């Protein structure tokens, strides 16, 4: 616990992971980091930031729009209040004041915290913090807008804690000599005003005051060089749960890459949900706006034109690129059917006889009308021809045309043999 907190404080260079850790810790262990950090002398830091966070969360609950904003931003806000201020160049005066105060006081705070740590190292830490600041810049730009909005709406209540934190800091760092057990009345006032921004005001105020007193004690102890006491005090500390902190879901935290490729979202249930939300605007967005969407003119489609060689080549390419292998016997039969190698289903025993189907059946059967011309009405020839017609009417293998030709062949034949027939007293007419 002790170590983690220290890491959080002393290594803002890799603060991404560590702050994230500490946040998880805060959420999990029902403890706020702020009070602990107060102990180490970065009190103003955290109190100001926490108040900001608190307010932000309140804001979130109030307005739908702010709610949409990433919780990750809240976390950033907490981890880098100074950066926030740096970005807010044209924001309120109080904010810039706080910024300078904090940046200036960072150094003494750290050196005081860790005597063992060399000055150079802390300088490195500072530089690391600056680096994070730079990478955060873009992300914080839209935060800034929100910040302004806040400062417009809640200007008064915000300014108060800001001031208070400044004064608090001045007390904390510069006023080491005053070792009175009783707190400075200004400090108390500041604490109460800071607490006024919190939901449960009285409790927060008393907590803050207790914190301040404890800080006084530590300052005294430190002056005596009794730095080991710090650990004992921290260990004894009781850390209360802050319900508002739960809003900072770890799932949406931003993770920084060392290679500077940017940040990646953690994937979890929440990001899945946000993916669903995003889905609507990623594939459905702006378009090129070159063509008119209306299908007003149907376009004179040259579909009637026969396929060109290019079309055939394209179709061939398509069929070559896909897998056309049949998977079972039926599919192979489908292929054969398409190639017309196979009888078609449903089975039709007149397949291939489409021409013949146009001829009605009675033309096959009633062939007597073909005997009306060129044949005698009665007699052996007529008799013979009637037999021929009967035979033809029962023959399924000949077309009507063939049957007619057959009959006309006999007609010609009998006409050729007319002389012979006359001799036998048979007349064709």
């Amino acid at each position, binding site marked *: 616990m002790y170590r983690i907190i220290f890491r959080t404080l002393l290594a803002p260079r890799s603060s991404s992971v560590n702050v994230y850790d500490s946040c998880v810790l805060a959420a999990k262990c029902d403890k706020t980091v702020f009070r602990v950090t107060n102990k180490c002398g970065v009190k103003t830091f955290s109190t100001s930031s926490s108040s900001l966070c608190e307010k932000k969360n309140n804001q979130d609950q109030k307005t739908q729009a702010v709610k949409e904003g990433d919780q990750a931003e809240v976390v950033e806000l907490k981890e880098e209040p100074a950066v926030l201020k740096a970005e807010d160049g044209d924001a309120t005066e109080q904010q810039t004041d706080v910024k300078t105060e904090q940046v200036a006081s960072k150094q003494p705070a750290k050196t005081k915290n860790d005597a063992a740590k060399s000055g150079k190292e802390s300088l490195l830490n500072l530089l690391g913090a600056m680096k994070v600041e730079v990478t955060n810049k873009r992300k914080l730009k839209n935060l800034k807008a929100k910040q302004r909005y806040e400062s417009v709406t809640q200007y008064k209540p915000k300014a108060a804690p800001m001031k208070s934190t400044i004064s608090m800091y001045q007390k904390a760092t510069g006023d080491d000599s005053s070792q009175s057990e009783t707190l400075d009345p200004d400090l108390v006032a500041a604490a109460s005003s800071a607490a006024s921004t919190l939901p449960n005001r009285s409790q927060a105020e008393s907590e803050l005051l207790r914190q301040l007193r404890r800080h006084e004690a530590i300052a005294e102890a430190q002056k005596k060089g009794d730095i080991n006491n710090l650990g004992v005090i921290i260990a004894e500390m009781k850390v209360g749960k802050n319900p508002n902190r739960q809003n900072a879901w770890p799932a949406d935290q931003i993770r920084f890459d060392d290679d500077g490729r940017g940040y990646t*979202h953690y994937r979890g249930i929440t990001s899945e949900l946000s993916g669903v939300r995003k889905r609507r605007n990623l594939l459905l967005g702006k*378009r090129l706006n070159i063509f008119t969407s209306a*299908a007003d003119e149907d376009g004179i489609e040259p579909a009637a034109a026969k396929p060109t060689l290019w079309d055939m080549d394209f179709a061939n390419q398509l069929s*070559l690129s896909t897998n056309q292998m049949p998977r079972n016997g039926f599919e*192979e039969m*489908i292929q054969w059917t398409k190639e017309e190698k196979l009888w078609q289903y449903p089975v039709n025993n007149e397949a291939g006889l489409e021409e013949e189907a146009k001829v009605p059946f009675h033309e096959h059967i009633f062939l007597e009308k073909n005997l009306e011309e060129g044949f005698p009405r009665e007699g052996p020839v007529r008799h013979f021809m009637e037999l021929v017609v009967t035979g033809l009417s029962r023959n399924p293998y000949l077309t009507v045309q063939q049957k007619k030709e057959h009959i006309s062949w006999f007609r010609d034949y009998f006409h050729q043999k007319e002389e012979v027939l006359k001799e036998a007293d048979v007349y064709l007419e």
Partner: protein
Amino acid sequence: MAAPGRHIGHSVQRNGRFLLYNLEQLLGHRGFGWTSALRQQAAEANKESTESVVIPRKKTWSREAVLEALASTVSRDPTAYPYQFQDDPYLSPRTSTEFKLFSLSQESGRSAAKYIVNNNPKLFTKDFAEPHIPCLMPETVSLRLEEVSEEALKERITLRKVTAAVDMYDQLLQAGTTVSMETTHSLLDLICLYSDRDPVQDGEPQTDDAEFGEELKKRKAWVRRASDFLKFTWKENNNAERIFNLLPERDTRCYSALIRGMVKHGAYAKAFSMYTDMLNNRLTADVHIFNALISAAPDVQDKFNERWDLVAELLNQMNQQKVRPDLLTFNSVLKALRRCGFLAKTQALHTLNEMKALGIAPSLASYDHILAVFYKSASSAQNNTLLQEVIAELEGRIFTCQDPDDVLFFSSAMRICLDSKDLELGYKIQSLVDVGENWRLLGDSFQQSIYYGRFFNLLCMMEHIDVVLKWYKQIIPSLYYPNPQGMRDLLQALDTDSRLDLLPSIWKDIKTLRHDNKPDLVEELLSLMAREKHSAEVQESFAACALDVKSVFDLRPSIEWSAASLSHITTLLLRANKTQQAWEMLQLFKSRNRVPSEGLLNNFLSVCHSDGDSQKAVQLVQLSAAFCLPTTWRLAKRALAEFELTEEQRAILSELETAGEPSD
């Protein structure tokens, strides 16, 4: 609309008796005023009810309908070989190489038969089939018309005889006959498509194929595809250009043929100058010209933004000339965007939305291009929301191939899943493949094996071993022949979930897949088996497997086996108390010029000790001395201490001990 009428009709029918009775009654009392009205109502109700139901007199089915219904009842049998190989069990492919060989030989046999039939039509005149089956009869592949006429030219064009057609055209011009515009168009199409060269006819023996080297055969699918485009380049002033310049008047079709041919055969800059020439002649382009030019755009410009500007300019001109874009237009835009670097991401999405706004459904190729734009390298695939969106959009849809690039979608989507280790998405893609006939869009066997390889790799990495094995049984080997890397992934998955007892069955599969000649794969298998002790029966099966591996060793003397795999086998045999076989293994070390490790010999000695076989122990120490192992003396010492030895044996051992012991 129809429903209420039907309802009334229904109720009328139900109450028919009552109504009838009523009507009868009413008929008897015609004097009542409301009679006719009621009857009219009833009649109306009847009329409505008959109108609502339209029973078709005859339903015409497509000729494949019955077969399609039957085919849909047959599901894939994961234990069977692909259907095309079921005729001949001897030709059941067990490896991907065999699969390729067999399917290619099947196809080449078909083409050879067709070639013979087509080139010897005199031998195949008998037409047995009734009704006549045209595709079984020889096709005309040789020229029939010899005289100089437009008909002869048309015949040459349909038979795709490029040089003969050009000759005929020249003769016609010399004779002073004018060729109709339509024939000129198709002649230009023909020349441009084949870049003024005679195409390789289907079924004709392809001489250049035989020249493919053995090493090229593996990459044949790629080589062939690339060569189709690269073999013939557009020649300066070829016949197409010459004929084009001779034309008295040129219309869009002529330009279209030229520009498409130039783009197809790599003369990109020339295509663009042709296009400006066409604009100067106050002609409007058609959609094919634009498609070709857009796909050529990245090749004529060097800078990313210049490329995109050119594409956008072409699209604007399309709009000005009132040419409706089609799917291929946008697909070529997206394909061009793949080579537009930083511009690609935003413009690709805009293009996709433009497509949708115009009512053109994107094909799989469109999505493939977009995925390629967004997931350029493996490292960038960590955030795969785009793929999720794409899959969510495609889910459950049935696709037909509309673009030759459609077949690349599934394998590239699976690559992204593999890179981002997203199993869930992988399953979604797989279920999309299973919908309808989408599996056909996996492409040829090469593409398909890439896809399944990636899917299987993903499974091995992310999934529980039971599920992996379920998929393993399902897709291997009926759909996918895993490569050695795939098998190694499977071994690792088995190791992760500690199901090493399955290793012998995996070894059988490795043998079937002919991966038993890959020493490193076999060594990995052996090391997994030998790594730790298992229960007695598992050890027994391992030992049987190890013996099997050993028999493979013996079968393939050319393969270099490492000392590690040899000692793994020996260890496995020792654990199963197969001392005699283990002893033979030790002999094998010698013949293979490998040196056993000290640990192995120590193990062996312990087994000898538990067997009480002092003779074997002495032989072991002697063997160790024969290998000139520096630790022989230690073995000898141990043997001396632990075994009950005869005097003679003791003498041998003590000699070895003193000989090997370091003098200092």
